[in-house]
């Protein structure tokens, strides 16, 4: 199933990202250090994927703004972010709690960095392993070391591999050099990728060369030289409907003294990345 936008805040642990937005900056998704050999490159990490789906606002029967609130299931008490904690269920209904700080401190020392101990050729990793993309921007005066790594990898045609911990999960990561810009693709562990055997697909059958050729002919006939990604047609249809409706006053509600909710607020990722690459916050 498609995953949610990476820029959406988690239920708990939403700390001071709103402050960052007010200053016109956005906090990096992760900050850390890439190392190769004894060279350290402090970096900030920002999503390279964004959602194109429009988020609709939930409104009451008269168009009054609503907000999403957490409440305790048993007592019904409304809960703010500070009133919630993460719990691991050890027995039915019995939880061990764990804080964000503990999760952060539990990361093995070496996985707090992206320690590139292995480089492979760019096309060596099957697409099955890739999960999500991020751009890395230099942090803490690391421009020179950053450019050095990007240039060396580009000239070798290599991607660097490591595992690291981000937001409470360890993952393998591949670092690409895209024309001088470092891009990280998080990957799945080998036990998170299934094989056809594990799924229980039938044994491979030998098929006649003629049947294979029939498909090969079809494939050749319908091959295009380049790939062009689709547009988000669903969102385009939605926007068309909005434009059609907005001229009629009865379809529109105006909320007085409106306080914008940060929930689902779109962030212009390209602007964020541009600022960060230029060394601004």
């Amino acid at each position, binding site marked *: 199933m498609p995953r949610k936008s990476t820029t959406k805040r988690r239920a708990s642990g939403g700390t001071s990202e709103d402050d960052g937005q007010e200053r016109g900056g956005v906090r990096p998704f992760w900050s850390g250090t890439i190392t190769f*050999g*004894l060279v350290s490159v402090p970096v900030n990490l920002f999503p390279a994927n964004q959602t194109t789906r429009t988020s609709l606002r939930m*409104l009451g029967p008269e168009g009054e703004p609503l907000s999403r609130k957490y409440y305790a*299931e048993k007592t019904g008490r409304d809960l703010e972010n500070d009133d919630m904690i993460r719990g691991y269920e050890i027995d039915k209904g019995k939880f061990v709690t764990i804080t964000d700080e503990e999760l952060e401190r539990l990361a093995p020392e070496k996985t707090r960095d992206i320690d590139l101990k292995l480089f492979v050729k760019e096309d060596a990793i099957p697409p099955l392993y890739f999960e999500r993309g991020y751009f890395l921007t230099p942090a803490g005066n690391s421009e020179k070391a950053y450019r050095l790594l990007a240039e060396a990898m580009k000239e070798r045609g290599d991607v660097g591999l490591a595992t690291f911990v981000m937001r409470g999960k360890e993952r393998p990561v591949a670092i690409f050099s895209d024309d001088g810009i470092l891009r990280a693709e998080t990957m799945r562990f080998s036990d998170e990728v299934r094989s056809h055997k594990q799924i229980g697909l*039938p044994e491979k059958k030998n098929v*006649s060369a003629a049947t294979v050729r029939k498909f090969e002919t079809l494939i050749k006939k319908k091959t295009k030289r380049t790939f062009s990604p689709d547009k988000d047609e669903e969102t385009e249809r939605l926007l068309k409907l909005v434009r059609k409706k907005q001229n009629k006053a009865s379809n529109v509600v105006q909320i007085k003294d409106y306080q914008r909710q940060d929930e689902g607020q779109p962030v212009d990722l390209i602007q964020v990345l541009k600022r960060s690459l230029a060394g601004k916050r």
Partner: protein
Amino acid sequence: MAARAIWKGELKLGTNKVPVKLYSAVEDKNVRFHILDDTKRNRVKQHMVDAESGEEVEASDIRKGYEIEPGKFVILEEDELESLKPEPSREIEVSEFVPSDEIPQQFYERPYFLGPDGDEKSYFALAEALEKQQREGIAHWVMRNKAYTGALGGVDGYLVLSTLRNAGEVIAADELPDVTGRAPTKKEIELAKHLVSMLEGEFDPKEFKDEYRERVLEFIAKKAKGRAPRLAPVKTKRATTSLDSVLAKSIASLKKGKRAA
């Protein structure tokens, strides 16, 4: 244990039809947490409340609005939103093919294995043809009220269908400015290339182990017994500035390591 198919459909390539079952090719092995309230340690739920009064609003009374200006919403009715949904269908239409390396890796989102659903001959023939030609099919289908675009390829004799991100979901590096600041010298780049080449190897996914998952579970087990160990805070590192000497040292220590091994 054999996995269960999550969807059934039919690949349509021109006049050829290949019935298939769809299986997730990945499974997330995260440690799963629940969100609890901090006093009673009970599970929490979400509901919608009036932003001003805090009164709960029933799901059936909720309306949806698209914000055209701050605080100004166009109301969209449930039946209108319903009419925007794609037509349900069992067809996976494969309209064209591209060379496998034409699709940038950034577009691949979520992979599914396809299994044959009856006609095994066509299934395995198609997988073989795609692999031989080194092509991937561009597929369109509707699954659970959502339209998908995907790449259909052959992997080790089986069909894999990966969903693809749309044009707006991928930011490309060429949309971004170059990194400025001090440039490394030619000598430094040569040293760095040498260092990278010494670290080159083959991709073996089994080399990566999730140690963190184990550590979190171990910590939880200790905490459950009331003996939570103290954890040290995280330190931050500084950027390396004297690059050429550090690069030379890195190369020297790698060479030494190799001799020792």
